[in-house]
């Protein structure tokens, strides 16, 4: 059995927290604290990227999120109608972003961390762009627990 829901927000950074809290609450029945945070940070980074880069910070556009609670995983899809992201940005992102010299203050990253965090936190990440719509699909696996009704 699976449970799914679609949520929609305006492309406004002020709205992201509301959606993130809702998704975290949805996932809380099946995910532990660490995995819940993994999903929340990945979702927030994905939406921030869409708003800041895809929609260039402009409000008035849609960001959709589909959450599906499956018996052994949580699936999140972030859907937008912005200019597609260069797919290699995502496939090349990894924890290597954080292999900086901790003694070199100037070298510490202040940005460009979002996609790496998504890759580090989710078990599967796929990006599909086409027909005016982009879909970022993210999966977090978990030990089987039954969602409460």
């Amino acid at each position, binding site marked *: 059995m699976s449970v799914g829901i679609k949520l929609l927000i305006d492309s406004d950074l002020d709205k992201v927290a509301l959606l993130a809290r809702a998704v975290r609450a949805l996932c809380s029945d099946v995910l532990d604290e660490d995995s819940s945070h993994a999903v929340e940070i990945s979702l*927030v980074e994905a939406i921030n990227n869409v708003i800041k880069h895809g929609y260039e910070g402009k409000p008035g556009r849609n960001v959709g999120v589909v959450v599906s609670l499956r018996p052994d995983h949580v699936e999140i899809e972030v859907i937008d109608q912005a200019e597609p992201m260069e797919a290699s940005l995502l496939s090349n992102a990894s924890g290597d972003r954080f292999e900086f010299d901790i003694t070199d203050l100037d070298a510490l990253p202040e940005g460009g961390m979002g996609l790496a965090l998504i890759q580090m936190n989710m078990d599967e990440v796929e990006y599909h762009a086409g027909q005016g719509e982009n879909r970022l699909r993210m999966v977090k696996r978990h030990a089987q627990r039954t969602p409460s009704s």
Partner: protein
Amino acid sequence: MRLIDEQRNGILVLRIDEKRVDASKAPAFKDEVAKRIEAGHSQVVLDMSGVEFVDSSGLGALVSCLKRIGPRGNLAIAGASGAVIRLFSLTRMDRVFSLHDTVDAAVEQMSS
């Protein structure tokens, strides 16, 4: 962005009175802390005990504050827990920032 200022032994303790430091708040947070550093505060403790979530923009703002205060100053973080500490660990920033369980511990170490 709500910050509450307190002075302790010449150290500025800034309590972040927000549950989230994310992309919607990071620019204002960075500006507010920068103002205080420009005003001459070089010993700063950020009290994050009330913060439940930080994203990469919030983390980037913290790094920016650390760079601005520079090697001659001190920026410590107190009271971070849960999801906030997890993000610091994931990004290895727990090895960059001086992290303390409480404001008292941070102030004590900075004063010594």
